[in-house]
């Protein structure tokens, strides 16, 4: 899966996903990528988030929506991502997932649970994309 959040110079934000799901999934299965609030969510007045990992678990918790609501409280994007994943882990301690979060000010962060996660970012002032590695929380 790729999950992406963007902020343009006018302050408009968007989020998106694209995925072919899990290997050997039961035919007919749909992952979290198509579910708003699960695979991704965004509100230009607040920020956006995207998630990756076990979609069958994540779509039950809407972690991207959760992270955006955390950012609405003024929480830093990295912490918002962590809180969304911790909420899932409280029910599914073996859960594997990763998230990226971006607020409307252009601040960003990421978090992973159950694995060491990497994300990519490019912002004004960066000539090339940068890959950021985060340890599992």
């Amino acid at each position, binding site marked *: 899966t790729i999950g992406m959040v963007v902020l343009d110079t006018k302050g408009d*934000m968007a989020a998106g996903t694209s995925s072919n799901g899990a*290997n050997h999934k039961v035919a007919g299965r749909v992952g979290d990528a198509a579910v708003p609030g699960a695979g991704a969510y965004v509100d230009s007045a607040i920020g956006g988030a995207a998630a990756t990992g076990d979609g069958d678990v994540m779509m039950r918790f809407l972690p991207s929506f959760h992270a955006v609501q955390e950012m609405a409280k003024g929480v830093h994007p990295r912490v918002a991502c962590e809180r969304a994943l911790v909420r899932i882990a409280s029910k599914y301690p073996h859960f594997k997932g990763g998230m990226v979060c971006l607020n409307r000010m252009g601040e960003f962060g990421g978090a992973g649970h159950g694995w060491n996660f990497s994300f*990519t970012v490019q912002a004004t002032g960066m000539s090339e994309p940068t890959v950021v590695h985060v340890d599992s929380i």
Partner: protein
Amino acid sequence: AHAAAVVINTWPFANATRVAFAALTASSPQQHLDAITVGCNRCEVEQCDFTVGYGGSPDTNGETTLDAMILDGTTMDMGAVAQLRRIKAAIHVARAVLHHTSHSILAGDGALEFAKMMGFQEESLVTPYSRALHAEWKQQHCQPNYFRNVVPAQNSSCPPFKPAGWGNDSAMYASSPDEEQQRVQALVTQQNHD
């Protein structure tokens, strides 16, 4: 004007980030949607880690199907496709759902019909790689899989299955719920995830 432009995405898919960021510097009234579309599509074309796009993650029938979504954070317009069959550019179809319908999600064969109506080319998403993955899985007696509470036992058999009775917990779970959770999570890797 807002000062900063930012693209952030899951995984080290730098090419997707790069083209998305370039779209943010173009003169388009829908830069933010353009960036998502070209960024996700780049991964669909490049088959990022075989977790995006055609030719990866075959289902129990050996078919690759795609899920995609695009959400406009300013208008809250959205479009998504779920279990899209036989169309490669899933994110473009999702954007067509956003622009050309007042719905949010189209799924399965209905999504395919919509995509064809919008001019997308129908083609197989199966590749030699995905065919080999599926063949190897069948050779391994369809292990691992995501079935449970079925007969014959899912941990040694291939589908089709029949439902096991619901009245007997010991028949429902071959292992404890915690062990079952660990088993499923062990299947999630950088090459196998949503």
